């Protein structure tokens, strides 16, 4: 798989976690792709924390409106039934547990469900934006990420960078497989048959609990 194929593969598998009617917040980058691969018959509501529900596709020349952007500042559109609101209601929705699923990227994620995604001290300090609230408030937190970063594991026993949230991640989905954070550790539930289990273990710093994992199934 090339880079784009990898991203789409991950996004397709994440999309299978969505249920009809879910309120979903997708982070910038890879997570945004999830919206392209919704299972048939499934309608979800996409929230953007800058103040809308009913996020539609990027506009064309005709539908472009500079007053409608997503949390990344990019122009978007609003679907029928969607609406706008201010930042306090937006985060009441997020912190209050009204978001069913949030999908985010990471710098690091670990076997206790802790996440690091907003700062590399001395190097990159973009800020946490809405990520800390999303990870704390959403009913289900899915990290969608490449399994490694330039060959270095991103899935660690314990995050070493400053955290975005402690013990809040529920699921990690990569091009290698699907992992779930449980009380006893990180379970490999599904694996991509393009990789051997040994390769996955090798690419993972965290200890994986492996108990008859299934093969990942996504449509081409």
């Amino acid at each position, binding site marked *: 798989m090339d880079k784009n194929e990898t991203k789409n593969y991950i996004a397709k598998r994440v999309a299978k976690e969505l249920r009809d009617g879910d309120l979903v917040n997708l982070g910038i980058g890879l997570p945004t792709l999830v919206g392209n691969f919704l299972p048939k018959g499934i309608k979800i509501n996409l929230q*953007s*924390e*800058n*103040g*809308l529900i009913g996020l539609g596709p990027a506009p064309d020349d005709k539908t472009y*409106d*500079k*007053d*409608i*952007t997503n*949390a*990344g*500042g990019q122009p978007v559109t*609003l679907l029928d039934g969607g609406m*706008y*609101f*201010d*930042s*306090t209601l*937006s*985060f009441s929705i*997020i*912190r209050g547990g009204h978001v069913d699923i949030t999908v985010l990227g990471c710098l690091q994620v670990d076997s206790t469900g*802790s996440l690091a995604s907003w700062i590399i001290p*001395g190097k*990159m*300090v*973009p*800020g*946490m*934006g*809405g*990520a*800390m*609230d999303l990870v*704390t*408030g959403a009913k289900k937190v899915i990290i969608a990420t490449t399994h490694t970063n330039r060959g270095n594991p991103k899935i660690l026993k314990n995050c070493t960078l*400053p*955290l*975005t*949230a*402690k*013990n809040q991640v529920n699921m990690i989905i990569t091009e290698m497989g699907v992992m779930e954070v449980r009380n006893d550790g990180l379970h490999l539930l599904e694996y991509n048959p393009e990789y051997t289990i040994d390769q996955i273990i090798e690419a993972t710093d965290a200890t994986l609990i492996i108990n008859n994992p299934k093969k990942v199934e996504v449509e081409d």
Partner: protein
Amino acid sequence: MEKIIKLTDLKNHLFDGMSIMVGGFMAVGTPEILIDEIVRLNIKDITIICNDAGFVDLGVGKLIVAGQVKKLIASHIGLNPVAGRLMGEGIMECELIPQGTLAEQIRAGGAGLGGLLTPTGLGTIVEEGKEIITVDGQDFILELPIRADLALLYGTTVDKYGNTNFTKTTRNFNPVMATATDKVIVLAREMVDRIDPDNVVTPHIFVDYIVKEEE
């Protein structure tokens, strides 16, 4: 009371060392020409409270690039590399706050609350130096109210009383900031005769002055 003032009157409400809340999210919903005027007037040592650092040429980013900001309180500065550099070099103080916490702290400042308990940031550096309060066995961070001297907002439609609405995603932090400062100045994209009383977002009592975008 006549609330409409000229852009050039803005100077009467500015002073070195002041704190200013600026509406907008990545400069969407930010009153650009009010920012431009502050750059022109070269007001110094400002504390800016804004969702983010804008861009180098948009939003509060212009004040940061001009070296007028002593301290920035925001949730995100990633799209303004100058902000990151000035913060890294210790030239501009920067307090990064989770976006939802920032919204609540400003709300508390406007609503007369002494603070609020949030789970956001627990177990992260956000909780450092803050009081942790346990309710029914669950920990929360006590976050305190934020207020400022002045709010600069960007209203889409404003009536003569000062009732103000913000269209689409330009709304963001504008309405809550209207409640939490000693003085509120709205840049009006359009003056209208009437806003349906059911649909007013920011009641006129919060708005002290109005600058028309097209004079």
